[in-house]
């Protein structure tokens, strides 16, 4: 049911390059997120681990 609903919602999305295991040496399925600290657009530093505790979708993107 959820799958069917989501399939509809995702159908409008564009297709990106094919993912492989070589995506990044720091990102691997089954491994923890890298312990990075990154700034917000306002300049405040936030660790990626701040988002632990809930299911999270991290979308790595650019506005162009």
């Amino acid at each position, binding site marked *: 049911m959820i799958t069917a609903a989501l399939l509809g*919602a995702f159908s409008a999305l564009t297709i990106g390059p094919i993912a492989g295991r070589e995506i990044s040496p720091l*990102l691997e399925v089954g491994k923890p997120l890298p312990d990075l600290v*990154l700034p917000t657009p306002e300049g405040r530093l936030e660790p990626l681990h701040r*988002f632990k505790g809930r*299911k999270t979708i991290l979308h790595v*993107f650019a506005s162009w």
Partner: protein
Amino acid sequence: MPGWHAATKELQDEGTIQMVGIVEEQHGDRAGLFMQWKGMDWPILVDSLNLLEVPYVPITLFVDEAGTVRNLVSSPRKSAEQLASFLAAAPPVPVEPSVVDDPNVSEGDSEPIRRDQRHRVRIEPARANSAAAWLQFADWTALMAAPGNLGKVIAAYERAAELDVQCHQARFRLGVIHRLRFDSDHLEPGDFQRAVGHWETALEIAPNQYITRRRLEQYGPRLAKPYPFYDWVAAARESIIARCETPFPVAIEPSGAELAEPLEAFVATVETEGEPDPGGAVARTTGRIAVETLTVPSIIEPGGVARVHIVLRLRRHAGAHWNNEAGDLLYWVDPPKGWAVDRRLWSYSPLTGGAISSEPRRLEFEAKCPAGTAPGEVSFRCYALVHLCEDQSGACLYRRQDVSVTAIVENRTTDKKSKNQ
């Protein structure tokens, strides 16, 4: 990305998942404007240095409650099924943080650091003196450094690049930091040119790194652009203002190549007349303006096209400002014999409002090198006619700033082959 937002909005609202954006752009604040335009209120983090080491975007990571990556997706075609499976998975059993030997500081460093501390300690890179240690030190320093202190960051990345000439990450990040300093009040002469040079080296080492490739395309000629990078900015602001909101502030306004549409063929201007000061009669600016010029790419192949960037900045001690009421800045370019340019005469209107201003003025044009050009340097004779006002006397002046742009021509393919023989 707006597709992801729409597809997961209900799940976000009911608290089933949280969405987080990580921006792989030189100017992360522009993504803040983009998010506001699209009505997306996710938290976003800016990864200008590409610390995540992703080769392209978009990439989506499904991360469970314990912070473990459960899936990596770059094709939305499979996203729905993977998201459903991710949502259905039970939370993992909590695990204590592991103690690991950090490969980045292994040489000469006997104390292991916990994975969750790795980026919170200040490593003394001289102890390890490895490229990895200097890279890590530079990464951390880059996050903490004020714009006036970026020289230390640059020195650390340069050390990493010296110790490992194949370290494309150090080269890419050197480019990012040089461009960041170029955009600040603490710029050093040649910062933008060095940024381009480091990105070009990084791309030679890692040609499949599309994040690096996009940085060059962002400032490069229209023939090489996959799309206009920031043509959406004006429409976004208009839409946000129409909603009675204040647009997210952007520190560096996109301009020139960042807004230009891609082209499939070079279009040369046929303009030959209209030079505004052919006899050179207008008095010169006498040291009030600092000029920086560069080409992207930094080396032009015979038959190739480059985007020429010229930046005019009022020197701090100039004691003058731009006089915007008197008229626009006029620009003229004389290309070398045989070269074509996309324009010869144009005017520059300030992006900032107001009768006076002192912002850097960025001028760009494109030039096509004739096929068969011998390797070497060629010069473009250019000049700007500017309106200035002296701060103390209030005198308003009309002045000419001569600019010489040097372009380097080299047949890289042939030269590389001959060097390898």
